């Protein structure tokens, strides 16, 4: 296992995905089967094999040129994009009400996305070995992106306040507690999205200028 093998990488990935399916998705035809209990084991083994193979994979030219923080920024943007798409697709359900079961369902998916983000980011960084993974430029971009994200979140909350304060009462019949919760969650995601877009944009701008 000391060198990269596409076969092992593929097998590990398939095992991890099967594990994710068994662990997080509602039980399907395998509900009564003992195979369903193997899910966590498949997820753990598959993730370890995939991460190991990914860390052994030779570094490509493009990867060499891109800063690890920029890779993180792209991964974050993709994850936030997926989360926002999921919220928008399920907006009507979310507006109706959040049961404890549904909250657990959402929480498990968010945790899954977060774990994926951390694992991929750690593996990509470990591939750099002892090389410098963060410099002054990364810190500056991080700082500015944070300001953008914070500003967007504040603007989102002010937007909700303005809507509540200046709209006519009968136009706000749809403002139920679940709707307020969904609006707040969306404002939060909006802040993260703006921060991630700003970060990626600043990296692209910087590379174009260099």
């Amino acid at each position: 296992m000391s060198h990269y093998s596409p076969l092992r990488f593929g097998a590990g990935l398939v095992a991890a995905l099967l594990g994710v399916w068994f662990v997080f998705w509602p039980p399907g035809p395998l509900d009564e089967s003992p195979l369903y209990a193997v899910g966590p084991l498949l997820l753990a083994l598959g993730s370890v094999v995939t991460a190991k193979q990914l860390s052994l994979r030779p570094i490509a030219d493009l990867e060499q040129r891109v800063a690890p923080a920029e890779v993180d920024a792209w991964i974050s943007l993709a994850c936030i994009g997926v989360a926002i798409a999921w919220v928008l697709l399920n907006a009507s359900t979310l507006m109706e009400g959040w049961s404890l079961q549904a909250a657990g369902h959402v929480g498990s998916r968010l945790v899954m996305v977060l774990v994926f983000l951390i694992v991929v980011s750690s593996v990509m960084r470990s591939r750099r070995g002892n090389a410098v993974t963060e410099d002054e430029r990364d810190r500056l971009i991080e700082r500015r992106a944070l300001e953008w994200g914070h500003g967007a979140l504040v603007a989102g909350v002010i937007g909700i306040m303005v809507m509540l304060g200046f709209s006519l009462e009968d136009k706000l019949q749809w403002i139920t507690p679940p709707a307020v919760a969904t609006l707040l969650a969306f404002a939060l995601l909006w802040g993260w999205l703006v921060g991630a877009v700003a970060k990626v944009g600043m990296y692209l701008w910087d590379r174009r200028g260099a």
Partner: protein
Amino acid sequence: MDEIRERQQRWVMSTLVWKERTAWLALLLLVPTVAYLVWWLFLDSAGQEGMATETVRRMGGRVSVLFVVAYLWIKCRNKGLLVDERDQQITAYAVRAGYMWLALSLVVTASVVGLEPWQEYLRSRSLAWIEAFLMLCLLSSLTIVSVVRVVGYWRDRQ
């Protein structure tokens, strides 16, 4: 030449002190406002019944608009050449802390409000109450920003 340099240094020093003073000023403005909002939202009988007086609504709107304008004004003024590495670092810490606080408060609020057992509580409140609660989240986040800035400058001076 030395005199000009000395004058410039003094000007820089006075401006940096002024920046710290603005952090104190923001803190002194925000703490009573947040305390008043907490009292009105959770302790005052009118607030508990979910009612908002017209004065509170009008005042709330005016104060928030005034605050945002003042905040932007201060921020624009801080973008000059006199922002050094120390200011940037303190601001970055402060913004990070404020952002985390606001995100956390919104996550907790959304989770609590969205769950069925707590929905009755929010239904008994008016839209003005929700609006005031959001303002509390926002202003408490800005208070955290000011606190971290003040502490940052104080620790730096120590």
